[in-house]
């Protein structure tokens, strides 16, 4: 880490943080989509309900990921 100023470490932290946030959100939304596809295949009549639940859950997870992204952007800009 020698030779890296605070600013460089800030950029590094922002990059790693954004990546981790995206990783978590990707895993979470992937799980939701997998379960939704499975549920729809098992019970096609519930497609509309499953889709609504899926969108809400995905949005909640995405919201958490976006918290991480906002913090990363703030790290870069400040």
């Amino acid at each position, binding site marked *: 880490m020698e030779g890296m100023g605070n600013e460089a470490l800030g950029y590094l932290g922002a990059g790693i943080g954004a990546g981790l946030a995206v990783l978590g959100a990707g895993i979470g939304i992937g799980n939701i989509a997998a379960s939704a596809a499975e549920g729809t295949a098992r019970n096609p009549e519930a497609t509309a309900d499953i889709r*609504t639940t899926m969108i*809400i859950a995905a*949005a909640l997870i995405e*919201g958490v990921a*976006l918290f991480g992204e*906002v913090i990363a952007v703030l790290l870069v800009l400040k």
Partner: protein
Amino acid sequence: MKRFSAFRAGEFARIAILIIPLLFGIGTIARAASSDAGHGEESAGDVIMHHILDSNKMEFDPFGSFALPKLVIGGFDLSITKHVVFMWLAAIILLAVFLYVGNYYKTIGSRKAPGGVANVMEAIVQFIRLDVAKSNIGEGYERHMPYLLTVFVFILVLNLLGLIPYGASATGNINVTLTLSVFTFFITQVAAVKAHGIKGYLAHLTAGTHPALWIIMIPIEFIGLFTKPIALTIRLFANMTAGHIVILSLIFISFILKSFIVAVFVSVPFSVIIYLLEIFIAFLQAFIFTMLSALFIGLASSHDESHEPEAAH
């Protein structure tokens, strides 16, 4: 046949009106990027931030710009900014559309199907009424319909205004989204107090646990009240801002790399795809905000005494 060709001419004129400012806009970005090409990356960031942030000017770029009035009342900066102008524009659009539709329903009988704009609006209103309000709030959802419908169409129009040339999306400003969430917060609390009474509302804060746990549960539940509107705020704000940043970054790739090939094969196709995705996200985020508002109101006012775990977080 003649009518058909007239229709086509009208369509072409409309598309040209949309495309010409877009070309001017890209030309402006190009000039901004090339004016200090020495450090292209930094100027790209500056232009992106300039595009995202609120300002005191309305800019119509090759044609110049005009400053908006600055108002400072009692130490508070109440200037009319770009985002305020766009919110007024959205309000005017909504007033015009809904007054027209409302009058239209008075002119047609109840047995006739509506056409045109009224038909589209009927689909939206029914969607909010049945799929959002009724299925999440349940009994007594009619009381919350005006708020939910207003917030849906307002956010939708603000999101879409950010996608037209010279537009800015006011929902990409955290003050706007925070205000909208505060409305949801107060409506949720009022609905909860109305449904359970003051005593029931306070009992809710203990989550039905043993009094020995209250010292932990009450702070947690109290914080939980505020995380919901804050999550709503950040979600809408970050989604709209992120979309704009992604589109501009893709455009700027070609300026940073100074390559026409990148522009043709990367910047333009990818930004068009993201742009189409943004149109979808404009609808989705308006829907999500309304849906979660309805969900919070429904959870707060549900008469179920089993204290079911909260769906959010």
